[in-house]
């Protein structure tokens, strides 16, 4: 199959506040001139983090005590706008292994899933509590438990939700669907033929 099963994700969180954070903000368009995704990590949220002279604006992602955080937390409609996979690629290459938000834009959600980055949905009250914990203590560890659909952080347990089909795909390592899709070539040809596309 396509990869390793993803059941639990451990790490420190970082909270980037805001609703409707679009993929233009996650990765500005000028970084899309590339033919591979390899160099995208440092460009994550570039214009939010740096001024026009490339000087740090002191964004939370650049605070030294947050270096190496594995879990990105944000608010509602995260990843809206352009379908560019460059956005989840930049998030992944920056070092994040999961994203928590109130809701996700669909294309972004699909792109993350294929890359093996769980998009975890958490309601407003719990999320604001979790973001507070994380903001107050950069060293705080948490665990996202995809099997049990919960996050354990300090002595608290928060409920989370995920699309069931996506959760299953993480648990049985089929989140990259290519092998599955290729396994039914005959059926695909039959559909194409029936519709007159062949």
């Amino acid at each position, binding site marked *: 199959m396509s990869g390793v099963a993803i059941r639990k994700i451990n790490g420190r969180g970082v909270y980037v506040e805001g*609703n409707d954070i679009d993929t233009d903000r996650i990765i*500005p368009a000028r970084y899309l001139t590339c033919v591979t995704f390899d160099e995208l990590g440092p460009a994550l949220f570039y214009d939010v983090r740096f001024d026009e002279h490339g000087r740090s604006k002191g964004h939370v992602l650049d605070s030294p005590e947050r270096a190496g955080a594995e879990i990105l937390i944000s608010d509602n409609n995260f990843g*809206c706008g352009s*379908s*560019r*996979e460059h956005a989840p690629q930049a998030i992944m290459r920056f070092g994040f292994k999961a994203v928590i938000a109130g809701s996700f834009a669909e294309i972004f959600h699909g792109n993350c899933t294929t890359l093996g980055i769980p998009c975890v949905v958490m309601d407003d009250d719990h999320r604001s509590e979790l973001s507070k914990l994380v903001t107050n203590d950069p060293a705080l560890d948490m665990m996202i438990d995809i099997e049990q659909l919960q996050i354990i952080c300090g002595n608290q347990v928060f409920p989370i939700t995920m699309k069931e089909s996506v959760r299953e795909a993480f648990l*049985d390592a089929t989140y990259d669907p*290519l092998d599955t899709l290729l396994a039914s070539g005959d059926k*695909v040809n039959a559909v194409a033929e029936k519709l007159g596309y062949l």
Partner: protein
Amino acid sequence: MGLNLYQKVWNDHLVRQLDTGQYQVFMALHLIHEVTSPQAFGMLKDKSLKVAFPDRTFATVDHIIPTDKQERPLADDMAEKMIQVLSSATKENGIEFFAPKSGAQGIVHVVGPELGLTQPGMTICCGDSHTSTHGAFGCIALGIGTSQVRDVLASQTLVMDPLKVRRINIQGTLALGVTAKDVTLHIIRTLGVNGGVGFAYEYGGSVIDQMSMEERMTVCNMSIEGGARCGYVNPDQTTFDYLKGRERVPAGTDFLAAVERWRSYASDSDADYDDVVDISAEDIKPTVTWGVTPGQAVSIEGCVPDPNDKDGLEKTLINDALTYMKLSANQPIKGIKIDVAFIGSCTNGRLSDFQSVAAVISGKKVAPNVRAIAVPGSEKVDREARELGLHEVFEEAGFEWRLPGCSMCLAMNPDKLVGDEVCASSSNRNFIGRQGSPKGRTILMSPIMVAAAAIEGFVADAREVFDLEGAGV
């Protein structure tokens, strides 16, 4: 209970259900371009896979192509490399490539329909969120990411979860000066930028019935800005008339047979919907954005909102947007000074968009402080506009008439805002930094409203600036 178009197209293209409960769905048409597809060919190579249906795959370049001069090699080395990678990958895999100067190049969502590649009842995908545009023909048309581009190249199928369908009825008659762009901005403003998450939008009602195909494309184009993964209009006589005689559309008796099949995809009169929304045409005014999402919009007669009328996160969002846009609460939207005017993009870069503007600007002049550009959506649009002499009308008024491409819709080519310039734009996104400067400010509106702003030098009401009735717009 009858079926809606989404269900019919889905059923016809369904391959099988997967163990995860999701579905494998065949893609009738796959459009690719230079930004999100070269990487996918790399992924394919890594796995020693071939393109499964090269005949159902078409490529063009649009995002990175300069619109002032397109001589190769391009000045930007990386842009040149992206075209070359796409060009050789398509050649290697037997995919037709509408290269610059081929006569068929253009923005991918302009090219598909104008060639007649886009046909009713199809599933269509492209590594670009505005693929929803093609829904105007009665298609399930989806924007996808690069890994999915890889999946479609390798298998011509996608993993999908079925969407819910929301029927949006727009009844009545649009007032003079209210365009398809205003309809879509109004819908987004009413339902919210994430109001459509989980839905496909079916647009209908007398307003949509009376629209031309190009207007329907404008509406479907921005479905994604309202959070809907796709949007569509049921195919009807307007659709068939548009398709008749197009290069890639069957002719003669084959055309008649195709029309029969296309017609059968339209939603049944007793079709079931997950949600229905009614919008009255009389409520729709020329609409412009004031903020940093397409939903932060207001009627041209209105004012910028006051954050103090809201609380919590919403208040913060309005405050942030006003700070970024350098606007003050309660300020009338009319009168905001602009620096740049842009007419083009896959939302409003088709022939009729330029025709409607040309009909009103002749004899007028762009304000001296405004840089105004008109960018046809494709080589075909450019050709047809030139045949009608539209480029001259624009040039005489003080617009630059450019070569086809995405241009100032997004900052991947030399057309960019500088510093905190304000741009009146016929494109689809006013996100922070979208037009190339991290401080650049975008105000979205219809092409005739952009023209009005260009001529006045500030956001203006086209109904006051032009004699719309006399021009027959």
